[in-house]
């Protein structure tokens, strides 16, 4: 079973690589969210200070982090929308796989590779850029505070984790529905 799942994932990765140009926008969207999450976590002392000037540092800090996560989730939904488009375009392919007796679990794994890879790629790119930006901000005089490397790591873990989980969760329903369709319906809807 592990072997067949491995092959499904490899097949999914190959398909995702073929469609890489179409995935550029979702990757950029997720990267933007990840960039902001890492930056907000890294620069939280500066964000809180701005908030204190507005009345409540903690409240503004929490709201800013919440919005950064919201941006990340927007990116995850963009990934899921790309996944629905991919599923629709590959409807016949899914039908053929079902007709040849490929287990639904393997087809599901192959189809989920694309959103997971897109979200992970975007999150990693955005998180790394955000981390570098955060660490470099005090050096170029953008903020007065020093940035803790630990905060940057927490931000990167948060950004990558939330992106991938949210992308899987948002893509799961359309993907499962596509896999569960009768082969004939998949073949005729292309």
């Amino acid at each position: 079973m592990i072997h067949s799942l491995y092959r499904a994932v490899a097949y999914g990765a190959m398909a995702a690589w073929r469609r890489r140009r179409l995935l550029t926008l979702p990757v950029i969207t997720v990267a933007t969210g990840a960039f902001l999450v890492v930056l907000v976590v890294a620069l939280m002392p500066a964000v809180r200070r701005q908030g204190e000037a507005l009345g409540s540092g903690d409240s503004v800090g929490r709201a800013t982090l919440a919005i950064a996560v919201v941006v990340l989730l927007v990116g995850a939904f963009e990934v899921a929308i790309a996944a629905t488009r991919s599923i629709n375009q590959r409807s016949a392919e899914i039908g053929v796989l079902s007709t040849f007796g490929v287990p639904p679990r393997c087809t599901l794994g192959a189809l989920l590779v694309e959103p997971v890879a897109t979200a992970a790629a975007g999150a990693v790119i955005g998180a790394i850029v955000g981390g570098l930006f955060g660490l470099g901000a005090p050096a170029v005089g953008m903020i007065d505070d020093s940035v803790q490397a630990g905060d940057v790591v927490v931000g990167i873990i948060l950004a990558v984790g939330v992106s991938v989980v949210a992308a899987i969760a948002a893509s799961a329903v359309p993907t499962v529905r596509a896999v569960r369709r009768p082969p004939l319906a998949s073949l005729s809807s292309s």
Partner: protein
Amino acid sequence: MTIQADEILVAPSAVEPLEAATGSSRRLLSFALANVRRRPERAVLAVAGIALAISAAVVMRTIASGYQVLGVDAVTDAVGGAPYWAVPAGGIRVDPATGVIMADAPPPELTSPEGWSAERTVTGTVAGHADVALVGRTGATEGRALVSAEGARRLGVAEGATLEVAGAPLTVQLSSEAGSRVTVPLDVADAAGAVNGWLTLRAPPGDPAAPNTVAEATGLVVTSDPAVQPADGAEGLVYSTQRSTNRLGFISFDQKFAALLGSKVSSSFLGLISTVALGLGFVIAVSTFVASVQERRREFGIMASIGLTDEVLYFFLVESLLLFVMAYVSGTLLGGAIVAFAASSFFSLRAWLEAAGLVAMYLPALGIVAALIPVHRLLQQRPVSLLADH
């Protein structure tokens, strides 16, 4: 590749294509709903994505509105309806802990115009209560302490209780003033060490209270722009709080001050991130319509080939409107919930409704452009190329 009958959503009514083309808004709406039902997951994802983006904008605007309300109420109480407000060098600020205007230097020493009255106000904090402002004002009733509702809550005093300020026993009288404050006679505030403050200038009845008169008498710069701060080395600055007679005269001083406070929020990290979120929401909308257009090329090819090109645009506009309305409703509710839980000190129904109204103002433009971009590309093509297989 054959075209499936059930793929042509206009098919049931296509026996009367021209009527469908010129059909009512109800027909457009039913077409949009039919397309939403055809790809329900995508519609739900698009609405959810746009709603999240809208919620981010609502959060920012609610916090900005809450801050503006706080600041405007504070200015209204500080100025007390006077046409001129002479502030010290270093200017004035809204103290976030108390929600009261505070000055960081004593009132400017100035000579009022002949016949005018000048009322002195000093500010500080109540001893042992940094979150309650102590305001000393000319004309405050002797032996009384006017305490705002929030100030009474923080001090733990009620109407009629005795409050001791700088050794002087004062009878508490609850007031409707904004923020957390105790207003006492000037001598009591002076005794409590409150020395920083400002002056408010009032003209006698019949005097036109011209800015030139004030500028000449006081020797200070007079401005109606709250963004202007006293120049270095100046004794202070006089704000004209009355509506000016220039082309910006329709904007009151309060409104300008509110805009100044709002810009503080929108230029913060919070404001910048929420702007990015809204941009990404727009990207999601465009992306959804691009996908929709690609899948329905043949359908629109048929419509274009029988002369229904404009209707394609209307269909997408109505669909876009539908998605944005659903996203707006859910995003506004979500944004309110985020502020209520994450930044409850800024949440008020008034601030949230103001935010919802402001966000609603630019959504139609976003919705129209999001639909127009992919449809414009579609309509640039000849019907025959739309009908061809891709």
